[in-house]
């Protein structure tokens, strides 16, 4: 088997006394979709921030395509092919949708005309083209989530970190987003996704990694994971003894 | 030169006392309302002139009027605060910046009003305390402490203690601190953010106005005096860490001591250069003030 595209080696991240991520290891193979799940506050977003360079791990390392990227700044990681979205969508509110995506396109297309052309293409893919010229602040939540994906995609990444891009959408919109993710996978992208909507993540993930209290409590295919008693307990709370 | 050191330290501390009174309420206002009030010097100036005229009309010692001036300017601050609140809670543009520019406009306007109303001459407020000084020679120290400056330091200590008491020991103070730390949670505790903000701003304007009287007794007053004190208020508050009240006395004393030591032991014309260089260096090393506790 080829070298995994991403390897997370015993990553620990502490904030003061709080250990948000505790000795987590897993890897992602090229072309797969790995779901990262766990109850609220389990440390998923923190782990995302470590992988995407926002936090340096307190311990452990992150290896991307064979290179140690732990502690490298996010803009460097964007350059080597890691795109990410944010859980709390924060578009550049004062700018239009097209401008938002164009900014990301500059990474691979330094000329403005090229970047804009590329941004249009991305918007076509994500279905936002008809809203290209509206202010990003004027988008609906679904639109903003799609804009998040568009921005990440405009980087032409080889690896995508998606943080709750479905949560909060109605079923129709959710289905469209799932469709989009599957399309991206078909194009060869590797994806690590955090999602709360189980329906979605169970369907699209090749493998799941489950976190609780910052620790990895399970890993495996969706069916393996869903029958794991630890996981069920993590989600529904402990049965009172 | 070493025999000057006790006097240098005394002068520095007394000067620091003045800076405390300029900065402490200003810092409180920043902590609670998150506004940098460019008009701080103008409040001081207005207070100074009010004291000056009250003294002129009644012939009574200006220190007797401090409560009157406080109440008067508390009212002024209380009335103005909602406007500032409105600017700061705006959703358009950059509210922080707008707050800054708004008070900047106020400061310009106040200066114009003062020049019109009070004229352009420098003046001084006479007080019984202006006479006399204490000599520490009996203690073997060649140190002179001017009474009026000692009163100033006493005022600074009193204001600091009163604010400390108000903030730490009263229910109102608890509400103010809660508001400064977490606005929504404070609301959930029943703190009326608008009214509390008005009280705080009123207290700040009132204290600044009283400080003006003091400065008029120690130094001089004039319609354009505000700017200079605004500078020192900024300096102290930033050095202390913005909104970090406990840091203010230390920052103010440091400023006073730096000025005093520099004037005596180095080239006095470099005093301000040194002061700004220190501010700059401290911001580099610890961007949130001396104690790293600014907000």
């Amino acid at each position, binding site marked *: 088997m080829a070298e995994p595209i991403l390897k997370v080696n015993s990553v620990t991240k502490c904030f003061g006394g709080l250990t948000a991520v505790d000795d987590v290891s897993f890897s992602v193979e090229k072309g797969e979709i790995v779901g990262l799940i766990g109850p609220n506050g389990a440390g998923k977003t923190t782990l995302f921030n470590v992988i995407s360079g926002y936090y340096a791990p307190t311990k452990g390392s992150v290896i991307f395509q064979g290179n140690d990227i732990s502690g490298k700044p996010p803009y460097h990681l964007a350059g080597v092919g890691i795109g990410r979205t944010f859980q709390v969508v924060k*578009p550049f509110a004062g700018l239009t949708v097209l401008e938002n995506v164009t900014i990301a396109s500059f990474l691979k297309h330094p000329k403005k005309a090229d970047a804009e052309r590329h941004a249009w293409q991305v918007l076509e893919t994500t279905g936002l083209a008809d809203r290209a010229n509206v202010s990003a602040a004027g988008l609906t939540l679904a639109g903003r989530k799609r804009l998040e994906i568009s921005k990440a995609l405009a980087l032409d990444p080889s690896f995508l970190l998606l943080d709750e891009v479905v949560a909060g959408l109605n079923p129709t919109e959710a289905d469209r987003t799932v469709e989009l993710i599957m399309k991206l996978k078909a194009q060869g992208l590797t994806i690590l996704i955090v999602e709360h909507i189980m329906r979605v993540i169970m369907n699209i993930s090749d493998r799941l990694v489950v976190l609780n209290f910052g620790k990895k409590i399970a890993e495996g295919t969706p069916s393996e994971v869903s029958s794991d008693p630890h996981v069920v307990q993590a989600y529904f709370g402990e049965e009172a003894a | 030169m070493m025999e000057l050191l006790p006097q240098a330290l005394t002068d520095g501390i007394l000067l620091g006392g003045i800076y405390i009174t300029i900065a402490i309420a200003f810092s409180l206002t920043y902590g609670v309302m998150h506004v940098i009030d460019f008009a701080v010097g103008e409040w001081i100036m207005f207070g100074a002139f009010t004291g000056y005229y009250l003294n002129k009309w009644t012939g009574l010692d200006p220190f007797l009027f401090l409560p009157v001036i406080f109440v008067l300017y508390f009212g002024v601050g209380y009335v103005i605060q909602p406007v500032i609140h409105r600017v700061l809670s705006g*959703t358009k*543009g950059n509210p922080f910046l707008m707050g800054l520019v*708004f008070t900047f406009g106020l400061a310009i306007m106040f200066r114009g009003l003062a020049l019109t109303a009070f004229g352009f001459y420098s003046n001084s407020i006479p007080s019984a305390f202006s006479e006399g000084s204490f000599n520490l020679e009996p203690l073997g120290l060649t140190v002179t402490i001017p009474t009026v400056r000692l009163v100033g330091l006493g005022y600074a200590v009193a204001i600091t203690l009163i604010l400390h008491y108000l903030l730490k020991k009263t229910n109102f103070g608890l509400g103010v601190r809660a508001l400064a730390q977490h606005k929504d949670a404070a609301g959930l505790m029943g703190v009326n953010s608008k009214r509390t903000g008005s009280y705080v701003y009123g207290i700040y304007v009132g204290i600044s106005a009283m400080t003006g009287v003091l400065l008029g007794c120690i130094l001089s007053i004039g319609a354009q005096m505000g700017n200079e004190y605004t500078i020192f208020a900024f300096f102290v508050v930033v050095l202390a860490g913005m909104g970090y009240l406990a840091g203010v006395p230390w920052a103010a004393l440091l400023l006073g001591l730096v000025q005093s030591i520099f004037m005596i032991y180095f080239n006095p014309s*470099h005093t301000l250069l040194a002061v700004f260089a220190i501010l700059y260096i401290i911001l580099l090393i610890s961007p949130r003030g001396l104690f790293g506790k600014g907000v």
Partner: protein
Amino acid sequence: MKNRGATILAIIGAALLILPLVMHDTFVLRVLTEGIMWIGLAIAFDVIAGYTGYLNFGHGAFFGIGAYTIGILMMQANLPFWAALPLGGVAAGITALIAGIPTLRLKGAYFAIATWALSRAIQQLALNVEFTGGPDGMRLEAFLNPQFFYYLMLITVGVIFATLWYLLERAPFGLKLKAIREDEEGAKALGLNPTKLKMQSFILSALPTGILGGIYAYWITFIDPSSTLGDLVSDQAVVMVVFGGMGTLFGPALGAILIFAFKTLFWAYLSDFQLLYLIILGALIAISVIFIPNGLWGTMVKRKAGATRPEQKAEPASEPAALSAVAAPEEGN
């Protein structure tokens, strides 16, 4: 629309170019020269304040450094004006570089006050060293040709405007800066290096300011620490930019024209009411902040667009990012 805008700009430009040929009032030329200078200063200030979101209260320092550089080079090194002028810009740019390394790490009020302290320190430095003439200031050789300075200022500011317009509105750079302004953290994920971009914008703001300072020095023939290194330039620039509308080039230009015109008319024809000027200016600033927080241009452009942009209600952030709530759900199609 774009064509019409370009046409109007071209007409204004042409009118400004022809003006001295048909009008010989040197006072009006002088006023226009200064007005144009303020446009340049305001738009240069807006690069860092409006586009990048960092309020520089020490902008005047760049102006003064430019002025002093030209003064010193011309009077003490006997350099010709044309050789000295670019060096004024370079000196301001280098100052921005040195000043920016530490200050650009600071946010909001701290940045504003740190830059302001820095400009004060520079002013004190100029007061205390020999080669600036200290408090006496410095006199430059008088070359009082109104047409020369008018054209010099017009062309310089024209070039500054065009360059900034190209960089900020046409080239990727402006968009990148806006991304930093809107969300510095988020911008990192898109491959932008905020530190580098902020520094570039700081230098881009300083450089033209230094050049304008240099022209000013040669034009006015006398500079001293209080007039070139004081708060005047920063204060005026703030007022003009906020009044006109931040984050655009036309807004600050409009603000500069209006504020400067108001000031000049008041000054020229209502001198007896000079103190009233302060009161009116102060009130104007305060009132415009309350009623047109987006500035004149921002308000005008929006009204034209016919739709007001709904402002995003800031989501209350809870402490560690790991615990933050998800955005509110929304309407289905």
